[in-house]
């Protein structure tokens, strides 16, 4: 019993790779979503600011006419979709695989009333919601990459997408902040000298980021709705910036 025991067939390294891939894809998607919302919220600084941001994202500075390349938006959309599908597929490994497992977990969660246990369930629910609503948004953006701008986006939000965006906003921001917190404690990246103290700090940061991004998102959505309402008679007409008008 004291010898160094060796398995005849070593365990596959795949579970380690998959766990890492889930974490890395989640990290990239989380950072993307925060950056995305910061860019989207440029509408709070005015139509001109949002127009500038959307044109920069289309790399208008590289095109002689200043029109930009909307195909870049499609390419980013396709890349994010691919990453989104990979992340969802990897995360589904951890989902309850039958009713009994789901019921046991819910019963356990109700018994424990333990924040981190409930957090995971919130991630399952928000992840499930995102899988459907996020796909719709991504499809719209990939197929209509040029329709991002102060009027085009507002017309879309006000016209038919606002209920989807409202639900998606809450799902994404809750999922992203909890996910980043869980990622940090899962790998112990910010453990420092006192991992417990570090976790408490991370919980505060997680709550702060959730509130910040939710507030920013709701405010941006209201701004788009307001512009969409004011522009309803001219829905479909693109925004012309001061600079473009003076040309």
């Amino acid at each position, binding site marked *: *019993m004291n010898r160094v025991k060796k398995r005849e067939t070593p365990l596959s390294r795949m579970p380690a790779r998959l766990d890492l891939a889930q974490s890395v894809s989640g990290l990239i998607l989380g950072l993307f979503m925060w950056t995305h919302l910061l860019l989207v919220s440029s509408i709070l600084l005015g139509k001109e600011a949002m127009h500038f941001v959307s044109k920069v994202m289309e790399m208008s500075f590289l095109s002689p006419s200043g029109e930009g390349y909307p195909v870049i938006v499609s390419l980013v959309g396709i890349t994010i979709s691919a990453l989104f599908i990979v992340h969802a597929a990897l995360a589904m490994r951890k989902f309850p695989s039958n009713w009994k497992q789901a019921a046991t977990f819910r019963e356990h969660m109700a018994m424990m009333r333990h924040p981190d246990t409930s957090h995971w369930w919130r991630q399952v629910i928000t992840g499930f919601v995102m899988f459907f609503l996020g796909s719709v948004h991504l499809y719209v953006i990939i197929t209509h990459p040029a329709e991002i701008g102060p009027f085009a986006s507002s017309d879309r939000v006000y016209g038919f997408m606002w209920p989807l965006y409202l639900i998606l906003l809450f799902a994404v921001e809750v999922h992203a902040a909890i996910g980043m917190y869980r990622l940090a404690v899962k790998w112990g990246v910010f453990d420092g000298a006192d991992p417990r103290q570090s976790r408490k700090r991370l919980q505060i940061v997680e709550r702060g980021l959730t509130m910040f991004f939710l507030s920013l998102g709701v405010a941006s959505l209201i701004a788009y709705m307001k512009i969409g309402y004011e522009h309803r008679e001219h829905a479909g007409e693109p925004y012309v910036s001061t600079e473009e008008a003076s040309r």
Partner: protein
Amino acid sequence: MSSESGRKLKFHILRYDPQTPGDKPRMETFEIEEAPGMTVFIALNEIRAKYAPALQYDFVCRAGICGSCGMVINGRPDLACRTLTAKFPKGEISLMPLPAFELIGDLSVDTGKFMRAMTERIEGWIHDESKDNVNLDQLEARMDPDTADKIYELDRCIECGCCVSACGTKRMREDFLGAVGFMKVARFEIDPRDQRTDADYYDLIGDDDGVFGCMTLLGCEDTCPKDLPHQSRIAYLRRKMAQVR
């Protein structure tokens, strides 16, 4: 003397004896008077003495050392002997047996069978190829005091089972190793006398029933009566195992 002294405590206790044919799980309520410094364990003794002589629960040390009296107290796994009744301002305390273990009866579960299987699974002993040829006339190699402290920190585990019952992953997936197993692996991993390599440990915990199945719910970290560093040690094992080629 506690200001809570003398108040009435209501205990709602799960009663069920799987050995008695036809017996059904039910909650029974007992009312006792709180005494200064009363623990749930002391209260259980009183309930058994006054009202329920057949009430089953485990205890040995009464001091948080043996790990026998683990049970679910108002929803959280904890040791009855270390839980003061004064902790519950409403004076209502529900007691259930630890889930994820075989029920013996009422609040008593068989953690021993589980812990033995877990120890065998992770081969929880020093693996030393030269053990059979050891020279007993020679002094044992000295261990660095810091390393000894680190081993001791993890050896404080009393195998009470609270971390296992508090783990949502374990509740969902029966074959999941659970935090107590990870603490044991982490303990042997830092022991210089154990000659196992990271690849050897990977063979024990490198799958979805092992460290990559842990969903970092941290019920273990937040309920361990001995405050073992579950959060940091499981993260450490995950990092270590992810680097194994």
